[in-house]
């Protein structure tokens, strides 16, 4: 069957959708900076003098959504925001698309560009949405599914938590791993580790640890 008119003809694989989203993020920042820094040039080109504050506000919107797309693990909501922004742009440009505007042609071109970018925004939003709905792991075969849904029984301490508290107190923290003396706790008016200090002093310049003869083996 021909896919030319099918619903999936425009489907992008998730990684392409993510790449497209990244590109749109950078585009958004670039356009936003242009709108913030050069609003007069834009309004002059579009015959929309007096709309500079609005253009700058749109610029801030573009930069924020761009940063959101680039900085987020889940950029889809920001892309939805871009789509809404595309609608605003079209509505704003449409007010200047009339016979009385000598720059009507430029406005038409701008409308076409916004429409084109909106298509890209839509494609990226759809691709990431499909990926989210699929949930990555949701499509995994059973063998890869988690073994347990509830980890409340996974202590990793076969004797139980209470019985395991302090079970490794026989471990002596190596000298080079101890906190500075002034920052160790005191008990009964003395540094808590007096005994340990004495043992270290007795050891003199002995290295902090011995190197295993052959790894730990």
């Amino acid at each position, binding site marked *: 069957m021909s896919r030319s008119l099918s619903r999936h003809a425009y489907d992008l694989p998730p*990684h392409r959708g*993510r790449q497209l989203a990244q590109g749109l*993020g950078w585009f958004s920042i670039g356009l936003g900076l242009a709108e913030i820094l050069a609003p007069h040039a834009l309004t002059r080109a579009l015959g929309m003098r007096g709309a500079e504050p609005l253009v700058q506000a749109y610029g801030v919107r573009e930069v924020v959504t*761009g*940063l959101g797309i*680039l*900085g*987020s*693990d889940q950029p889809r909501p920001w892309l939805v925001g871009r789509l809404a922004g595309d609608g605003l742009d079209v509505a704003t440009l449409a007010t200047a698309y009339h016979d009385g505007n000598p720059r009507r042609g430029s406005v038409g071109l701008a409308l076409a560009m916004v429409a084109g970018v909106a298509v890209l925004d839509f494609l990226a939003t759809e691709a990431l949405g499909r990926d989210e709905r699929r*949930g*990555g*792991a*949701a499509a*995994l075969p059973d*063998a*890869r599914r*988690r*073994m*347990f*849904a*509830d*980890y*409340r029984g*996974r*202590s*990793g*301490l*076969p*004797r139980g*938590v209470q019985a*395991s*508290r*302090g*079970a*490794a*107190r026989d*471990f002596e*923290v*190596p000298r*080079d*791993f*101890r*906190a*500075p003396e*002034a*920052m*160790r*706790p005191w008990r009964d008016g003395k540094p*808590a580790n007096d005994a340990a200090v004495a043992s270290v002093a007795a050891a003199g310049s002995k*290295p*902090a*640890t*011995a*190197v*295993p*003869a*052959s*790894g*730990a*083996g």
Partner: protein
Amino acid sequence: MKALVWNKPKDIRCEEVPDPRIEDPRDAIIKVSSCAICGSDLHLYDGFMPGMEKGDVMGHECMGEVVEVGSGAKHALKVGDRVVIPFTIFCGQCDQCRRGNFSVCERSNRNKDVSAKVFGHATAGLFGYTHLTGGYAGGQAEYIRVPFADTTHIKVPKGTLTDEQLLFLSDIFPTGWQAVVQCDPQPEDTVAIWGAGPVGQMAIRSAILLGVKQVICIDRVPERLAMAEAGGAIPINFETESVLERLSDLTGGKGPEKCIDSVGMEAHATATLDAMYDRAKQAVMLESDRPHVLREMAYVCRPAGTLSVPGVYGGLIDKFPFGMVMNKGLTIRTGQTHVNRWSDDLLRRIEEGQIDPSFVITHTASLAEGPDLYKTFRDKKDGCIKVVLKP
């Protein structure tokens, strides 16, 4: 052989690559029986660590059987030995190795010049972890070449313990252990651990075993917090509770003595001003790492306390309150794990039944399924906390 190969950020594939061979007398070849995806592999997957190249074999947590031994390693290994491979490659002879600082071995990084340019001095070679650390092929593969194999191994008994119980001696168990040990834990300490991922889970059990008064774990993923609570930690969900208020309540207003960052460079705080600032700066490449956890730890830690940082950072952070650190007299301890410094002791504790590290495994799959599971693990979907692959 089959291996998981890095092609570009977010693109890891299971591909056919050449079998490894002995290149140096101290090498050995290991047939991998089990390997795991580590949280720090995700920094490579997401493209936040510099120095990866197309075709690099991933993975630094693996174990298996020795199938070939170079002439210079035969005094320590023989064909048929069952070994866990530590992620830090070390020579055992240089100044740092003689002090037990294996993760900064002076000889095992074959790209020393590049590493020194970035870090000032070279650090040790690591398996499957960028060309800054030697560009060695990793262990998410059917076979792995182990350089300095006479020292870079942990020999484990055959038959009595499963791969799942032993595999994490390669990284996350000693990493969680070292994170607590470098806090110099005391019986009256409260240890707060940011991140309930695999290293955070191991740090919780280590702190309990080492006998501190109270362990607190901060995360936002319910199943991870449930696992943390099962291990003896008091959970704080930073999306539904105020971390500052809870920590203050739990410590009588004084703050935890010891704070552990087992999150690292990709902190996922979502609703704080500094987190949004980091996201924006990272998005336009003005900052490489997101240090929200470091800032929060410095703020909440009790004066004269310790910040321990096993979480991986790769480059530059911004707006770190060093005045706060200085004036509160905090100690900061960091570093990649000196795995073999702790492995004998930790192996004994597994054998004695003090701990069974397999509790953390949530997914087991074949190597071919690895690429999909990278994404599952990264997105914390499907309850994924730890993935073990069977080549």
